[in-house]
């Protein structure tokens, strides 16, 4: 092929030459070329190798389903697989090779597979190579052969500016009917977005010209009207990748996805020209008529010198006219129809009622001619009576398949229209309209009228009006031949070019019983390749209909799913937002050398790194500080909820298992929460700040869900309470340790005396000048104050405490030390010492459950469970001092060779100088003094002994330290 002199509407810019490399050779094209048009213009005969047989291939459609011209494109340092040469604009400077070759396009070692063809029938791999012994080897070979392009594992992460957009009417497709629709909708006052995957609008109106000057003029005027209409936004080089619920259509642009929410959608995607099925219909030089027209009018590339046009419709004659107009000799028009149209170009031989049954290749594998014969309706033909016609180009125009994928996804019902031999919409969902070829309308004036009606109707819907009924267009043309499919004893008559499926493969599949369209698709993989059946599904349906002796409509179609064209993951991912939360003290932790651990959306300090100390040592130091002096931990991630009102106490009695009606003002109490099936889901500390005002905490992970569920319950109960979630607006920190009170004293005028602020008390006072709520709690088992204050003031308080604590040896401590401290104290962590099915009886928390209340969530289920034997029980244990190993959390408790439970928490206690832990075990083992066997990593079994909880300070004296009494260790 070679470049033509300038064409009226050509897309190329001859003033800008772009150089690139293809298969190691230097090539150049023009700006506006696609990779394929540039390569063809440069005389490249082969663009790729086929998927299975590695046959040389070139362009088929030039319409974004030339899957045999997929390229590996290396540009600006990294490489992209499966780039579609037929539509990808030439950038200049790229290095291009065909995918799926072994040793290059020309010398591809894979080509021997073409000769093996006979031994590789459809689904051949199902019938062979499955011996257990050999399959792995065979699979490795198979995986080596398959897979098209290569992934460049050094390629960078690409983040794209994905965005939302809104319009009244979205028109998909910028051909004649789409342009008419956009214009009509805009004239009706709608804000219109018009999307076309081509680089310029106009569609077939500007390439399927048939050298018709009037059409050319009319179309250019229409395009001008669109361009100059301020209500219409035109997006070219973009495609709608799918239709999702409520007119939600992602538009894939070269750089990102635009998520379009439209009030109404017009689908004007046109139709895909379909190949005829005959031997060697995949030879380079054989292409669809529309591909030849695109080459001529868009890229000024001469498709061949001497052409045969294979006709099944009148479009073929326009193809011939366009070819002739650029100096291509028309060797013949081979028309399947006995009666050809009136307008036959002068001097062109038309062979009526005949078919191309074989394309003939020369030594280099290029088209040298065609064999034609007179076919019967079933695709058979008289092998004795054939003749050859020499040509270097064969243009096939025998039929179309509508681009209805988005309509299917929207839930449209289709019917098969006999006149046009295609599926057309029968019923469409509200606000969705289809026009043009996709609607079975093929001739230009009708397409324009059909589009205008669809556009007006869409605008009406967008404005909330009833769409006026659309007049039924009557298409008199017959654009699609019912069966352009011709058997050949030597096969190589391809139906699916992606998957290298031949006609006989379908008969074989049906023979095996895969004879409904879905099974056929799955067994043969027809339409499963990158082109998603755009050129193969329609012929597959026709073939199956013939096999089953049923009408095409009964055979039906397979379901259509996004993506319409494949979409890069980076486009879908966008910027990939990652929600992260941080407490007001985050910067303080960074400054203090925090080592972070994730906790849901939060990052929390696991511990604070100390120069010269290993992780364990640093954690131990934090534990020791809390036990012997003081420690400060950020507990701001806890949920913080406030309940006000006359019914506040009643409300808490319903949502927690414990009793709160009798909780004294100024005091706190532990609260346990279960769900309706009595599974433990959350816990916290409830403070009563006044008769009708409670303030309480939830677990870190529970904060959002607990608040949500509490408000839902009260929506049902309608109690007179106000519930507020303060989680993010308040900060919280726990100051704990024997020195806690003395440290705090230096920062507040409030009375901290044990008499006025006893253990479990709750007070409000200023700390470092900041109004704060103080809860005297003992989670870590020492004298402790949980300080809650306004988030914006928290860093100030933290700083003040940090300097006030220095003289006392106070340290900040992290989650890991807290875990250890609470374990010494025998306090449960919901979600670690319990799992998704643990109830309070199993968790040994009956003490926190008041069954004699009138009602609480989960109470009724607990009554049922109370009647049943326990399934497991949470206990404490210690390892024998001479234990030869230390188990980890979730190591199993083994009794008589059977699993009898698991370790939920375990650690070496720096305070008790031994390994302590908790375990959920079989109740019969849960007696203090009972010895347990804990299995480590499926092997060694370690002895442990069940003990009462807590391990540390059993009478809780340390939490209750009275004033003046100095229990500070030497550390102070």
């Amino acid at each position, binding site marked *: 092929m070679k470049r033509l002199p300038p064409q009226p509407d050509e897309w190329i810019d001859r003033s800008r030459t772009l150089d690139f490399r293809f298969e190691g050779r230097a090539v150049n094209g023009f700006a506006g070329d696609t990779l394929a048009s540039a390569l063809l213009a440069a005389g490249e005969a082969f663009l790729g190798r086929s998927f299975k047989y590695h046959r040389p291939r070139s362009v088929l459609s030039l319409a974004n389903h030339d899957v045999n011209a997929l390229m590996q494109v290396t540009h600006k340092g990294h490489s992209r697989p499966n780039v579609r040469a037929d539509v990808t604009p030439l950038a200049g400077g790229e290095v291009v090779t065909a995918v799926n070759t072994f040793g290059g396009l020309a010398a591809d070692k894979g080509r021997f597979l073409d000769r093996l063809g006979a031994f590789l029938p459809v689904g051949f791999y199902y019938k062979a190579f499955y011996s257990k012994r050999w399959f792995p080897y065979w699979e490795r070979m198979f995986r080596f052969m398959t897979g098209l392009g290569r992934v460049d594992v050094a390629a960078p992460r690409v983040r794209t500016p994905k965005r939302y957009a*809104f319009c009244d009417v979205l028109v998909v497709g910028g051909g004649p009917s789409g342009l008419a629709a956009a214009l009509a909708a805009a004239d009706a006052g709608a804000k219109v977005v018009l999307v076309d995957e081509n680089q310029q609008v106009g569609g077939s109106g500007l390439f399927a010209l048939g050298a018709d000057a009037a059409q050319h003029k009319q179309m250019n005027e229409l395009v001008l009207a669109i361009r100059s209409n301020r209500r219409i936004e035109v997006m070219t080089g973009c495609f709608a990748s799918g239709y999702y619920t409520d007119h939600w259509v992602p538009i894939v642009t070269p750089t990102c996805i635009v998520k379009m929410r439209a009030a109404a959608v017009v689908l004007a995607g046109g139709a895909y020209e379909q190949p005829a099925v005959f031997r060697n219909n995949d030879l380079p030089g054989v292409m669809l008529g529309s591909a030849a027209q695109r080459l001529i009018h868009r890229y000024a590339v001469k498709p061949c010198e001497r052409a045969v046009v294979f006709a099944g419709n009148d479009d073929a004659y326009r193809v011939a006219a366009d070819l002739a107009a650029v100096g291509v000799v028309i060797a013949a028009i081979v028309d399947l129809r006995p009666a050809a149209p009136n307008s036959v170009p002068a001097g062109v031989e038309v062979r009526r009622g005949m078919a191309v049954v074989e394309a003939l290749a020369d030594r280099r594998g290029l088209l040298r001619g065609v064999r034609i014969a007179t076919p019967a309706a079933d695709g058979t033909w008289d092998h004795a009576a054939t003749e050859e016609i020499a040509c270097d180009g064969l243009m096939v125009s025998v039929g179309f398949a509508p681009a209805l994928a988005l309509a299917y996804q929207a839930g449209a019902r289709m019917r098969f229209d006999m006149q046009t031999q295609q599926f057309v919409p029968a019923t469409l969902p509200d606000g969705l309209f289809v026009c043009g070829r996709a609607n079975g309308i093929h001739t230009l004036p009708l397409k324009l009228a059909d589009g205008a009606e669809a556009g007006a109707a869409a605008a009406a819907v967008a404005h909330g009006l009833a769409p006026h009924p659309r007049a039924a267009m009557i298409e008199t043309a017959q654009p699609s031949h019912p069966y352009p499919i011709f058997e050949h004893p030597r096969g190589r008559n391809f139906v699916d070019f992606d998957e290298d499926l031949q006609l006989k493969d379908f008969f074989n599949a049906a023979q095996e019983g895969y004879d409904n369209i879905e099974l056929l698709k799955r067994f043969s993989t027809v339409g499963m390749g990158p082109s998603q059946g755009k050129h193969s599904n329609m012929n597959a349906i026709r073939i199956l209909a013939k096999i089953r002796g049923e009408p095409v409509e009964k055979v039906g179609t397979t379901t259509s799913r996004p993506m319409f064209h494949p979409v890069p993951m980076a486009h879908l991912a966008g910027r990939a937002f990652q*929600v*992260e939360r941080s407490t007001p003290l985050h910067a303080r932790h960074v400054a203090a050398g925090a080592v972070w651990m994730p906790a849901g959306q939060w990052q929390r300090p696991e511990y604070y790194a100390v120069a010269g100390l290993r992780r364990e040592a640093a954690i131990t130091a934090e534990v020791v500080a809390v036990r012997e002096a003081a420690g400060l931990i950020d507990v701001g991630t806890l949920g913080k909820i406030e309940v006000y009102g006359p019914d506040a106490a009643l409300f808490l009695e319903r949502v927690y298992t414990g009793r709160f009606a009798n909780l004294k003002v100024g005091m706190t109490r532990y609260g346990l929460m279960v769900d309706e099936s009595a599974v433990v889901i959350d816990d916290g500390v409830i403070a009563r700040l*006044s008769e009708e005002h409670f303030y309480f905490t939830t677990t870190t992970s529970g904060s959002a869900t607990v608040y949500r569920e509490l408000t839902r319950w009260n929506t049902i109960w309608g109690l007179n309470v*106000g519930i507020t979630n*303060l989680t993010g607006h308040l900060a919280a920190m726990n100051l704990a340790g024997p020195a806690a009170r003395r440290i705090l004293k230096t920062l507040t005028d409030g009375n901290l005396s044990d008499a006025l602020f006893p253990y479990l008390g709750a007070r409000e006072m200023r700390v470092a000048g900041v109004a704060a709520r103080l809860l005297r709690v003992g989670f870590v088992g020492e004298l402790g104050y949980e300080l809650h204050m306004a988030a*914006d003031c928290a860093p*100030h308080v933290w*700083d003040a405490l940090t300097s006030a604590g220095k003289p006392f040896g106070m340290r900040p401590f992290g989650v890991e030390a807290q875990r250890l401290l609470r374990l010494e104290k025998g306090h449960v962590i919901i979600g670690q010492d319990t799992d998704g099915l643990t109830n309070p009886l199993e968790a040994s928390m009956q003490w926190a459950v008041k069954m004699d209340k009138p009602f609480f969530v989960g109470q009724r289920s607990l009554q049922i469970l109370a009647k049943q034997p326990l399934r497991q029980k949470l206990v404490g244990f210690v390892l024998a001092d001479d234990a030869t190993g230390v188990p980890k959390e979730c190591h199993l408790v083994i009794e008589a060779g059977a699993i009898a439970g698991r370790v939920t928490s375990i650690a070496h206690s720096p305070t008790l100088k031994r390994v302590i832990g908790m375990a959920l075990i079989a109740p019969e083992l849960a007696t203090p003094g009972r010895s347990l066997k804990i299995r480590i990593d499926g092997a060694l079994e370690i002895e442990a002994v069940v003990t009462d909880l807590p391990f540390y300070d059993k009478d809780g004296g340390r939490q209750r330290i009275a004033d003046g009494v100095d229990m500070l260790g030497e550390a102070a």
Partner: protein
Amino acid sequence: MTSGAIMPERVSPVHAVVAATATRWTTRNRMALAADFADMARTALPVWLMDVSHRFRFGFKGAGAPAWCSAQGLTLPGAPNTWAQMQGGGLVGRLAFTEFYVEHEDEALVTRLTDALGRGVQMPAGGVYPVHRRDAGILLGGARAQDVLVQVCNVNFGAVDVGAMPLIMTLMVGVAVTVFPMIEGDQTVYRMACDPTFAPHLWSTLAEIAADCGGASLVTL
């Protein structure tokens, strides 16, 4: 800390993320705010972000809230999800039916309201309960503010009738945000409030996109 030797009592929730780029600082309502671009006209930037977390915030809710709102001499936003201007640049927003959000420069005014409702430990007035708020305040403006919004939020702000003084509670990059669109000069400015623990994520996301749109984050005083 980048914000100088003496730490003011209040710290903006976005202090750390702003500090990563800020070079000039000022103090407002006992809170350090970045003052880069302070002398530059906002309108000169295609899109700009501003940390207004220094303003004082307060909320109240309950069946008696609307009446109490009027009783305090505040303009009562008539319709749910609308807001009203207050003297001295503050605003009162009506979240759904019976919850209110107040934001103001003047600490005394906010304190007066807080005290009027009682400090939590006391009995709240009939059917009105205080809502302790320390929202992060972010202002987004500039001719290309829309270009930022369409990348972070599914609400069509382009179609919002700013004149009706609506407030919009929605999700932005996964964060619950209350947005008050308002006209400043010839520009629409979006005043946003969100839970301060999400603010660093929201701010850095908005700042990244704003930068892509040729904008910058700044504080004007």
